[in-house]
């Protein structure tokens, strides 16, 4: 097994990656052209780690190389990355945070893959790598990333709906108040809505501005409410604004449904995107104008209801809806959750790191072996 780390900004798409993403029906955030757009317009740009076994792609991880939580600069060009400059890595999908940023074919030895990934990453980043933070991992992935000395904690889960057989069945399970809100939006002549897949008729600049404003508002509310990611009083946010170029490319994908809400005069009130896959589908982005700026109440409920209807009609196995506002989502039928975990691996504990990792491996990692530290780095094959 070996791991190649590519920078989507300048490196060509790795051979076999498109086939891998297609075979596993990965969501659009894993598509290389989108990854490239995201990387160029990110404060902490992601790189892609491609895990191969006998030359075949068997897994991938998206890794944000972070310089700061509060930097107001985009990521520097790759050539300027100094190997001694302190940085850390976050295995995380900032635009799809209910899903882990690590995917593997079934049957892959996850521990071995993670070990190789950490070696390759340490080699790529250099001595400045402070550690790796695996964020929003499912339990099986978190188990493979955990080990002695590595902090692990459960974070806010992702909302999940396992669609019932019929729309009527789902509708009957909603509260009267939720149903009346959805009906009111449906009947409101001041709200016009349309939907389509692979849309090219939308102004991504307008949508991105609304989305970024919505995210900023939500972040401020979460911060005021003492969000769980707060650590030692620091506001640690490694994400970046969504760029119009990225959003435009996302909306043009055939498996992305976009619904917009406008006034009869054409003013944008809100929009939602849904990843229209069967296993699983995802309610992806939601943004709306605030009530103070003339927004309409209840649009989000209508958008979720339409997504659920679509999911039921398509017979999807699961519809997910992100990690925020779980109570509100539960009222819309998203009563299931998927537990997510974060694992922190400081540099001394990384595979391929200095002495401490080797000692800890020998003194009792559950499934670890003691050979990692001495193995040849980057590109090594097991």
């Amino acid at each position, binding site marked *: 097994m070996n791991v190649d780390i590519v920078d989507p900004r*300048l490196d060509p798409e790795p051979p076999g990656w498109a086939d891998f993403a297609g075979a596993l029906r990965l969501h659009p955030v894993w598509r290389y052209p989108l990854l490239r*757009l995201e990387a*160029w*317009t990110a404060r902490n740009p992601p790189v892609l780690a491609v895990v191969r076994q006998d030359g075949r792609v068997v897994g991938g991880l998206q890794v944000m190389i972070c310089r700061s939580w509060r930097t*107001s*600069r985009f990521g520097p060009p790759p050539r300027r990355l100094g190997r001694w400059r302190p940085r850390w890595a976050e295995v995380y999908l900032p635009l799809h945070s209910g899903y882990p940023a690590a995917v593997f074919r079934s049957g892959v030895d996850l521990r071995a893959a993670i070990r190789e990934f950490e070696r390759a990453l340490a080699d790529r980043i250099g001595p400045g790598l402070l550690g790796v933070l695996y964020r929003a991992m499912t339990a099986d992935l978190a188990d493979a990333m955990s080990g002695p000395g590595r902090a692990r904690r459960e974070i806010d889960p992702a909302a999940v709906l396992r669609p019932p057989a019929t729309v009527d069945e789902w509708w009957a399970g909603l509260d009267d108040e939720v149903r009346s809100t959805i009906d009111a939006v449906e009947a409101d002549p001041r709200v016009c809505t349309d939907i389509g897949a692979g849309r090219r008729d939308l102004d991504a*600049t307008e949508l991105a*501005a609304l989305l970024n404003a919505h995210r900023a508002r939500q972040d401020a509310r979460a911060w005021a409410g003492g969000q769980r990611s707060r650590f030692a009083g620091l506001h640690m946010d490694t994400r970046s*604004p969504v760029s119009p*170029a990225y959003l435009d490319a996302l909306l043009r994908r055939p498996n992305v449904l976009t619904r917009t809400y406008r006034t009869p005069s054409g003013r944008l009130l809100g929009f939602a995107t849904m990843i229209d896959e069967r296993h699983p589908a995802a309610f992806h982005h939601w943004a709306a104008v605030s009530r103070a700026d003339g927004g309409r109440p209840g649009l989000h409920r209508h958008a979720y209801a339409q997504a659920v209807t679509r999911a039921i009609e398509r017979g999807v196995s699961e519809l997910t809806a992100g990690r925020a506002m779980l109570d509100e989502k539960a009222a819309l039928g998203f009563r299931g959750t998927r537990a997510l975990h974060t694992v922190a691996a400081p540099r001394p504990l990384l595979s391929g790191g200095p002495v401490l990792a080797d000692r800890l491996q020998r003194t009792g990692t559950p499934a670890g072996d003691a050979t990692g530290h001495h193995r040849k780095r980057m590109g090594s094959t097991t």
Partner: protein
Amino acid sequence: MWNSLASRLWRAAYLRAVSSAFATVPLYRETWALHGRTDPVLVPDRTGSNGGALAADTVQRRLVDTAPLAGGSTEPDPARGLAGLLTHATQRRSHRLVVVVDAAVTRPPTGLPSGSRGCVLHPDAATPLDDGPVLREIVDTLRRGERVLAVGEDKNLDALSAALRSAEPPTELPPPDRVPHHRIDSLTGGPFGLLHDPLLGYLGVLRDCGRWHVDCRHVYVRETTGGLAFTVLDRTSPRLVDVLVGGGVPGEVQACPRHGSPVIET
């Protein structure tokens, strides 16, 4: 004297603006990283179109992305740069009142010399029937024998003059000084004039040599295949770099043989 050093400093200020915009401003990051630019090339092998310059319409539509990541205003100042150009635009050193008559200018010019005040007058209010506060202030200032400078398009300045001639009560008012401003695609020969764009503000001035001088302390201009591209050097937000004003007007940047400073010829 527009010597080699001054030229290099001007160029260095522009390069700093480009570098900073690429590193911190979403619009330029996206445009130059994904499509490219020239002079300088920032991403190898990506040279983009029009040398990376953007049409003013595009920038106007994406003003929200012209604020740096750290935050800032996204509201352009159409009166930006006026104060610094007035000394070259008129023969008088100062005026008690500077009036900008233009629908696009909604805020008074700032940075005027001490003793001068600025105000704006919407062209629709420059009529004999209007009794608005700005028109009253202009009349009162003229009646006190103090100087008033009116800046705007010729037709708007004519309308203001007509409104002042019919001011009540009827008295013989001295006419205000006037400096017309022009868009880059309608530059005339003077004797006075300012180069104006509603997005970038005041960019240059027609000097006594008869050439259009760029406000080189605050503005950089370069030739691109799409036309002359202007950069506001000293405004942090909204950041306006390499903007093709007037839809992209072809032209040349030269040094004025008399003053030595950069001039444009369209």
